[in-house]
């Protein structure tokens, strides 16, 4: 047997004896579209009038929007109700060609992977196959999509025996049977703590779910009702879209539909390249840090370098933090790409169509097994904790290109607030049902300051326009979560600047009428800001999770109304309730059961500021002071404005003098750049900081201490200690010391 023949036999053996079909790196690491097929070439040649293609596109777009409305209406998950979903049409080769105009943009670039998996592995598998009426589902982020709380459903569309395309929808369903309720467990220490692990699989035939599979899925989650409603809503929306595709085929012919889907992708890529080519060539670098894993405080580096060359953009994240093998904050590469696409689709070119071709001219460089390109062994339920700061790293680099760009589709901005400051809940509601999900308050992220005006207060999440923070009366009708303060603008929660970022809001929550109720939170940024200002603008402030335990606020309402306070600031500073335990924490809270009337308080961050605070109009400062959005301390010591505390009248002369004094002070503090670098730079990260990522050399990665490193091309994943063990150790040490003192 010759060498080639031997190789072939071995390959055949290996192909036939696969243990299981895990995530396929060939599919997962590519965001490029499949090559144009012969069938598509033929269709585009036959149906090539742009105005005709536009009419078909319009029809299919209407279908996407119609099915989006259906999912939003029929879905029971809070995420579905505020638009955390997308519906779309994929080509026969699995590329997302058209998506609903509403919903979460991040899905635009990362939904093709499960479809391509189905095509690669199940299409020709005799035990599975793809036939008309088949229903496929998926939720495991290692096979595509953002995180396991998102469930996708797709169905194939055939015409006279030929696979034409797929239709379907993806929804943030929430509860998925993970180790904590609500679908995004920050306590997960392995992928197997993250609940349902649906690799792409067939769940029904002839447009009907298999009852045994439905039962299995319902049996695997805390909210079987939600699972049922979510699956039904997606199926009927996909079916509605399928019938619209059939209508288009009937009216324009099958060639028209195939040609339109592919032409849409090609045209989009071409337009994106055209726009990129108007940016100046060059490199812009940014560094950002995540300040924790949601279980412990540490510094997780996001190193980002943008290089624009011709009609391409290269985003280089090499040198960023290693992956955390027992923490949920790792990002699957595909999720990272999805989030970055968001920057371009929402914040740079919001007028572009929603499909994956927008990201085609962009290349990514990452270190394997880094926190931004994690292995399948690492949990990823809270990947937002690393891919949101990565998004921001790109967002604050882009304005440097846009200033000289030949084409700008919207305003140039500083960093949008980027954290999901909200409560996740789980427990028994007032009707005796077991529930677990997330509140929509995360949608109120503060808008960034703009080049010519302030940012808007708590306006939209970074991942979706027109998202809703909901209404408290509707929330407490369904779950026993009472917000004493639902969304109240927080004084001084602001990225200051010539133009300031939009404020964030504070929330004070408690529970009532439940036998068992727990809260969780999943945000970083309590110590180091997650977003930044630009061109001199400030980053927003950092806020902790605050708690008052050992108090029942409803009893205080009855008996001690004078003690009531309605801001976090007053409650924590004045500590009005005798006997209460007042504590502050980072905003990574694992499920904690609360007693009725205990208070949990969090604060949404603000957008970053733009420009120098000394250039802000004093009258704008006065207006904000009168609106109680900023304190006199901020007026005096940040903006250096002198005004009358009662009337808000600005003393122009005194303000000018004060600002001049501040400018003089800056000059005195200034140093030549080289001198500054010399005094500032160190060889290693500070000894006291648990630091992850590169320091000076992107090829060398620190693993939590200056003494523990690994090469970037051979990253050794990090294992964190259980915070409870750490705490026990600390307490035991204290005990030992006390005992020693006692003995002494």
């Amino acid at each position, binding site marked *: 047997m010759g060498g080639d023949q031997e190789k072939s036999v071995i390959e055949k053996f290996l192909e036939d004896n696969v243990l299981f079909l895990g995530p396929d790196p060939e599919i997962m690491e590519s965001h490029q579209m499949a090559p144009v097929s012969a069938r598509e070439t033929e269709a585009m040649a036959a149906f090539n009038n742009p105005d005709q*293609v536009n009419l078909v596109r319009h029809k299919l777009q209407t279908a996407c929007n119609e099915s989006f409305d259906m999912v939003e209406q029929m879905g029971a998950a809070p995420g579905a109700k505020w638009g955390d979903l997308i519906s779309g049409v994929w080509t026969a080769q699995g590329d997302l060609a058209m998506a609903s105009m509403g919903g979460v943009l991040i899905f635009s670039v990362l939904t093709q992977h499960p479809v391509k998996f189905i095509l690669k592995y199940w299409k020709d598998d005799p035990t599975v196959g793809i036939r008309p009426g088949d229903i496929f589902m998926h939720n495991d982020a290692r096979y595509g999509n953002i995180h396991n709380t998102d469930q996708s459903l797709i169905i194939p569309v055939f015409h006279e025996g030929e696979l034409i395309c797929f239709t379907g929808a993806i929804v943030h369903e929430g509860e998925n049977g993970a180790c904590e309720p609500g679908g995004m467990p920050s306590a997960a220490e392995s992928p197997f703590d993250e609940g349902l692990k649906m690799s792409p699989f067939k769940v029904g035939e002839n447009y009907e779910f298999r009852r045994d599979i439905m039962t299995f899925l319902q049996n695997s989650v805390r909210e079987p009702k939600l699972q049922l409603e979510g699956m039904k809503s997606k199926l009927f929306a996909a079916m509605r879209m399928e019938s619209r595709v059939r209508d288009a085929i009937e009216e324009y012919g099958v060639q028209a539909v195939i040609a339109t889907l592919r032409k849409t992708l090609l045209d989009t890529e071409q337009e994106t390249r055209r726009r990129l080519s108007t940016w100046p060539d060059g490199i812009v670098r940014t560094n950002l840090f995540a300040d924790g894993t949601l279980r412990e405080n540490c510094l997780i580096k996001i190193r980002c370098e943008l290089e624009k060359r011709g009609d391409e953009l290269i985003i280089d994240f090499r040198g960023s933090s290693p992956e955390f093998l027992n923490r949920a904050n790792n990002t699957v590469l595909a999720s990272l790409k999805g989030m970055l696409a968001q920057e371009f689709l929402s*914040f740079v070119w919001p007028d572009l169509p929603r499909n994956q071709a927008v990201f085609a001219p962009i290349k990514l460089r990452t270190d394997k097994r880094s926190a931004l390109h994690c292995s399948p062994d690492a949990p990823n339920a809270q990947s937002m904790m690393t891919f949101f700061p990565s998004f921001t790293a790109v967002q604050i680099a882009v304005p440097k290109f846009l200033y000289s760009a030949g084409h700008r589709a919207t305003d140039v901005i500083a960093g949008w607030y980027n954290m999901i400051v909200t409560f996740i809940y789980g427990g028994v509601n007032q009707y005796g049902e077991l529930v677990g999900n997330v509140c929509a308050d995360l949608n109120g992220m503060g808008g960034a300051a703009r080049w010519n005006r302030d940012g808007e207060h708590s306006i939209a999440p970074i991942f979706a326009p027109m998202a809703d923070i909901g*209404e408290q009366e509707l929330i407490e009708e369904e779950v026993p979560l009472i917000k004493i303060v639902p969304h109240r603008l927080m004084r001084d929660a602001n990225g200051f600047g010539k133009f300031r970022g939009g404020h964030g809001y504070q929330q004070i929550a408690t529970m*009532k009428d439940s036998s068992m109720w727990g809260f969780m939170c999943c945000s970083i940024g309590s110590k180091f800001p997650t977003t930044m200002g630009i061109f001199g603008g400030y980053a927003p402030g950092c806020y902790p999770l605050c708690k008052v335990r050992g108090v029942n606020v409803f009893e205080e309402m*009855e008996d001690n109304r004078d003690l009531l306070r*309605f801001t976090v600031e007053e409650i924590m500073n004045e500590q009005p309730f005798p006997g209460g335990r007042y504590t502050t924490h980072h905003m990574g809270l694992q499920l904690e059961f609360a007693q009725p009337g205990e208070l949990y308080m969090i604060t949404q961050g603000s957008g970053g500021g733009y420009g120098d605070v000394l250039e802000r109009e004093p009258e704008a400062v006065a207006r904000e002071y009168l609106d109680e959005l900023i304190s006199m301390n901020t007026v005096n010591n940040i903006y250096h404005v002198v005004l009358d505390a009662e009337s808000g009248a600005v003393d122009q002369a005194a303000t000018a003098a004060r600002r001049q004094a501040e400018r003089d002070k800056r000059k005195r503090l200034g140093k030549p750049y080289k001198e500054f670098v010399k005094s500032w730079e160190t060889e290693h990260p500070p000894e006291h900081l648990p630091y992850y990522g590169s320091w000076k050399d992107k090829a060398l990665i620190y693993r939590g201490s200056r003494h523990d490193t690994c090469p970037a091309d051979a990253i050794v994943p990090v294992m964190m200690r259980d915070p409870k063990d750490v705490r026990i150790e600390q307490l035991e040490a204290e005990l030992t010391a006390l005992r020693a003192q006692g003995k002494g």
Partner: protein
Amino acid sequence: MRRVSVDIGGTFTDCFLAYDGKYIEAKALTTHHNLASGFMEALGNACGELALSVRDVLSTVDAVRYATTLGTNALIERNGPRVGLVTTAGFESSVPLMRARGYGDGLGHAEQTDLPGADRPKPLVPIPMIVGIRERIDYKGTVCLSVDDEDVRRQVRKLVDQGCQAFVVALVNAVVNPAHEKEIERIILSEYPTHVLGGLPIVLSHRVAGRKAEYSRTMSAVLDAYLHDQMYHGMSTLEVALRQNGYARPMLLVHNTSGMAQLNSTHSLQTIHSGPVAGLEATGYLAGQFKEPNVIATDMGGTSFDIGLVTADGVKFYDFNPVIDRWLVSTPMTYLHTLGAGGGSIARYDRLWGAVEVGPESAGSDPGPACYSRGGKLPTTTDANLVLGYLDENNYAGGTIKLNRRRAERAIEEYVAKPAGLSLIDAAKAIKRKVDANMASAIFKEVAVKGYNPKNFVILSYGGGGPIHACGYASEIGVAKVLIPPFSSVFSALGAGNMNQLHIHEKSLYLMLYDATFRTVLSDYTVFNDTVAELEERGREDLIRQNVPLDRIRTRVELDMRYGNQLAQISVTSPIPRLTQPQDIITLLDRFSTNYAQRFGEGSQAPEAGVRINVIRVVSYVEHDKLTLTRSTASDPARPVARTERPCHFPQLVEPMMTPVYDHTAVTDGMSVPGPALIETPRTTYLVEPGWTLTMGLMGSAVMVKNA
């Protein structure tokens, strides 16, 4: 029947007069500075046709009905009163934050998706005019924190000190338990009795909207307070004018709920879009009279295109959270979809797709299309229609606007034809086709999303621009019949003349019909029956206040139902006014299931997840006499004589066709005109496209049918 109905629109005031069996239509320009002037002029024109004086008519008519959007100028000009908002402590930022998404409410898709460019509208209630009261009621209506008299007085004084001219009191869960809102009203009245400061209006949120959701209910109350003054000033001016001309009865105002009421029973919020809703109401009536069970109403004006639906199953479509200007409110408004498409929609070459695109930007009426010669340089739908030969440059809008063909050609050449590499005519054809396709898509989605097949409908086309495009957009969605209604140019006014006096009261509740967790079916009917009784009583009070005899009052019970925790609330008309037995529950469940399947597809129902009633709504009304609209059965083989002919270009044909042009008076009842043809009226032009035939009916109605 002697009845005057008037619809005041942005440009024209339309009048429809029914007088002893005669139906008269008339128009006048809307006089924004004083609506009564335009009103009286339109009425005068109608009376002139009967050779009667306005006084003769007004002193003998049974009713004057009036459809107009009142007070919205105050919104546009932001010159309403300084409103002070009293809300629950901790909820002070709900209104400024507008549920986050509020920045995009009332805007188009492009503005909604542009987050860096997003700006909230200038607030109606600035932050310093919002105060929080220490009180709290929970979802069940239980008082957690009672109202403190001194706290309220302190906060209210703060508002008055800052120049408050109207109070809105909007407290959390007030629709479940309004006690605290009423208590605060009492305290304000005791602090500021009407003899002090001239009596500041106090609007309580639970009286304006009966649904849960504190932000949208608060905004409903804020808008009501904000528009209140302007509405009453406008109405009193009109009432004085009517009284001076001999009218002694109360005027009836058309509501956007498809009903009407006297001024003393009308919230300003209920008048928003009342004109278009009256048009839809007329469509419903016409559908019955003409025996057309499924009708899509389309009203194309200069800047907007309204779409409404009348269906054989009688399902009533509401918009419970309409957006007024930029504000999301809570009120059960009859559903109409408005698309930003009209004669003024701007055409352009879209580099991305290499194709011609139209809208959503509009040149409106000022500067208007390029051919208006009013400074507009961009090509519009009207410019394309002129270039294609559909419009007569010397006889547009009854000759009131002279069109300039050369300007239209130049605009299309420069902005569409050259960049797209098309000839002038091909570019104009592409514009026409895209306009029709855009409207067709919007119609399709509106019909399909409700679960109906558009091919089972006929299209009713009215408004100035509709009849030129009706064949086009009907073809695009596969509809083969287009109706042009009688008195099409004043169709909404006609609708106003045909409405019932009607009031809607509704209440949010959490009533499980089927609890899936515990597998129980509702057995205690008290809450349902008591709620219906309470809402019926409120409706009765409204109508009795307007001197309606008790025995003429009818009621209809409607329920908003949902499966599990879905967002979708489907309205079900309950055949049962009170629950008395288990079978009643099953009847409601079946009816809900049928309506749900109609909308989302058979099999999509999810009763396994539980079924609950979220809102009970009682419609209380008194029926009024109806107009008689007769469908012609005449057939006249005679061919009308064309006034002239001109070449027209059609998107589906390569070569132009010589097209006869008829004066509408030449085409009489029963006459048929094959396409291509143009029929010109003083207010619009009917385009009968090749392959279609128009047959004229009575009272200016017509039907266009696609040839088999």
